[in-house]
């Protein structure tokens, strides 16, 4: 009983900010600064961000950038992880440590150099100019998760696949990817969320309003003279929904991915 109560409290603690956000989005504008339950629910803020703001467009941009990042990070990440886990290249631990080090760079420290680099490559204000840095930051996570996942697959399956005529690459595609599906789903979702939520690079590298991603569009709602809390809350709610839907779809797989290797069998 107490365990259930604890779980309910923990769930409430985690969900509270989001619930508050939804509640704020639904409040009539006049009651925004008031505590306590709203007098009635209003969809004005939602209607306004969808009709009058570039949010739907920004979400589409964000989706494309995040999806490209995810596909690229998982494709490159699984190749790297597979060779680390199965082909045992020399300097394996150095490579893993290097990947970890890359993920430690604070993004703010890399904004300047990246801006220079993208400007020379002609990728500023271009979606590819976001996908590239997002992928480099997502790769260490993907490599780590997938290396673990591939290491959990018995070595003899790799050997069996090789004897059965597979090249290392086809052993990856035909045996290891299907068996690591839960971990791949986990890694993909984490990468997607990170790319979807990223603000700093998107704000810095994109200048055309039509190319903005969702977090940038939300940040742009406030102006010097006004903080439209209702609209910000509505936009944030809408921007969170795709992640909630994805997480629910992959829920079971993620749980088994995060605990992969914890229990044998």
């Amino acid at each position, binding site marked *: 009983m107490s365990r259930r109560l604890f779980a309910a409290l923990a769930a409430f603690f985690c969900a509270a900010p989001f619930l508050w956000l939804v509640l704020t989005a639904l409040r009539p504008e006049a009651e925004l600064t008031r505590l306590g339950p709203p007098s009635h629910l209003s969809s004005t803020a939602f209607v306004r961000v969808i009709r009058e703001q570039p949010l739907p467009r920004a979400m589409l941009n964000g989706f494309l950038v995040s999806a490209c990042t995810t596909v690229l990070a998982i494709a490159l990440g699984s190749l790297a992880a597979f060779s680390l886990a199965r082909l045992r290249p020399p300097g394996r631990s150095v490579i893993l440590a290097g990947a970890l080090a890359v993920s430690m760079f604070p993004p703010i420290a890399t904004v300047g150099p990246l801006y220079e680099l993208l400007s020379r490559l002609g990728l500023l204000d271009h979606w590819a100019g976001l996908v590239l840095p997002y992928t480099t930051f997502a790769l260490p996570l993907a490599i780590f998760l997938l290396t673990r996942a591939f290491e959990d697959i*018995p070595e*003899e*399956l790799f*050997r*069996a*696949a*090789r*004897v*059965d*005529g*597979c*090249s290392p690459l*086809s052993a990856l595609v*035909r*045996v290891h990817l*299907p*068996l690591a599906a839960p971990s791949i789903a986990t890694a993909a979702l984490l990468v997607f969320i990170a790319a979807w939520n990223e603000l700093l690079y998107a704000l810095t590298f994109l200048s055309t309003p039509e190319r903005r991603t969702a977090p940038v569009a939300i940040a742009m709602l406030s102006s010097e003279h006004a903080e439209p809390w209702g609209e910000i809350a509505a936009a944030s709610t809408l921007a969170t929904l795709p992640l909630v839907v994805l997480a629910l779809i992959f829920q079971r797989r993620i749980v088994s991915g995060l605990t992969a290797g914890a229990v044998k069998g």
Partner: protein
Amino acid sequence: MIELQRLTRAFGGRGGVRDIDLGIEDGELIAIVGPSGCGKSTLLSLIAGLDAPDSGVIRIDGRDATALEPKERGVALVFQSYALYPHLDVSRNIGFPLEIARVPKAEIAERVRQTAERLAIGHLLDRRPKQLSGGERQRVALARAIVRRPRICLFDEPLSNLDPALRAQMRVEIRALHRELGATFVWVTHDQAEAMTLAERVVVLREGRVRQLGPPREIYAHPVDTFVASFFGAPTINLLEDQTIGVRPENVTVGSGGLDRVEAHEGRVVLVEPLGAETWITIDTGKERITGRGDPDLAIGERVFARWDPATSLRFRSDGTRSDL
């Protein structure tokens, strides 16, 4: 024909092989046997192309195969853990090598069906590996190995996860399969009895080197050193007088009778093992222990004699090699 020439693969610790020279004939059933860490699995990996030697040459049918990919060698391998693909059903597991070789679908289906029926697993084709018993998994692994009709089939201790009754039955089936396919079977095991019953020739490996090669009966009767002598045979050979004399327990008679033969050792009974057809008696002479055949009614502590015909004993030097060969 598989020829290994001065094949060496070293690891940091145990398990490597050194200077292996070995010729395996076409259609032969040869067993590679030795204690764990002797390098027998390494040798199999080298033949299969799953590992590359540090030096030496592997020839398959006269062709240098040392640097060939596994798929170019036409070699199948059955693993101890069966190594079935958990995400594929039995039928796709068996057909997997054919699928990789891009054999047409209809032909795969037909060959999978035939092979499965040959191994009496035709009714399991829709199951997943985890729904199968150990014996059934073993058969699926076997089917996957022979479905592409390999010239060479390697076995890495494939029976060691089965219970003894099933193991004995599988040995009989493997021999029949070997006759039927006419392929070369290379069988790795740490079980000397399995090697003796199954193989036409046995390679004894110790610490990465070939110690002896020959038909099982010859190895049993004429071991080259004390290691080979004690590795084969159950109960283990008696090594007496500082390991310079070896006498197989079946040549020793333990009893209280008269001293009519030359070699007689007096001692007290310490162990009585009645196996039904045979009873093994172990006595302690004060200097060493001797096991031989005897009467199951002998009592622990009883004073008896062990004797044998000196012509049946083997003689060794102090370094373990034979002095009477």
